[in-house]
């Protein structure tokens, strides 16, 4: 399964819904999407990975890169993720301490 991305606004946030596989081959497309949102002045992002089948370290790198980018504009990048399979990867790499990780988009929005 390939990567697919869809973006929508909710309150003051841009929600990027990702599905498929974020890997060393597809991650550049996620990076481009994040870069484009930031360059259009969206600095409060929520990346919903609930429908992601696979995430590797390149994908994590792109998310961290996105976080650094929005932070330089005093923005935020939160993750929506409930699957153990993916949470484990954030945990192993210590990124649970770096990202806000929420059960739902609403919970991510409410946290601000």
């Amino acid at each position, binding site marked *: 399964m390939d990567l697919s991305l869809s973006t929508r606004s909710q309150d003051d946030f841009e929600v990027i819904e990702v599905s498929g596989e974020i*890997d060393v*081959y597809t991650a550049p497309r996620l990076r481009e999407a994040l870069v484009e949102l930031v360059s259009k002045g969206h600095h409060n992002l929520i990346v919903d990975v609930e429908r992601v089948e696979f995430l*590797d370290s*390149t994908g*994590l790198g792109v998310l961290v890169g996105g976080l650094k980018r929005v932070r330089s504009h005093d923005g935020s990048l939160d993750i929506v993720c409930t699957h153990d399979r993916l949470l484990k*990867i954030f945990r*192993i790499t210590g990124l649970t301490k770096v990202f806000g990780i929420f059960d739902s988009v609403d919970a991510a929005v409410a946290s601000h």
Partner: protein
Amino acid sequence: MPRTDAPASAVNLCLAADLANVRLARLVSVAVGRLHGIDGPMLDDVRLAVGEACGRAVLIHNDNALPAPVVIDIDGSAEEFSVTVTSQEPVDVEQRRLEVRGSRVEVTANGGLAIPETFALLGGLADEVDVRSDASGTTVQMRWRLPPPAD
């Protein structure tokens, strides 16, 4: 039926160094892992670890314009499942470094290559990770101990 000398599930996959092919390496490892009775979270670990090791190998081949394929050896017994990824970059162990996507990679004292994020992840996914480099290339061997079959 006469058994061959090679172990039943020995699989060897040579992939052109194309990022699109990393998925194939994951696919094959997962399929062979299933033949060995691996499932659930351990199968997710195999999928991710193989993806990491192969992604790393393909990037290295690309960045160093190496025409050789990346080689994946998958093997297993009743006790253990292993995947070995071989990239063919000649490591200048003297110089102790190699460019990977612009970030510096350290060659450790025992000849291993260290890309911090990749190997941090591998260490958390496989029961054992063994990395060896020499002038002909680098092998990353990942091993998983299989639980005794329930009966």
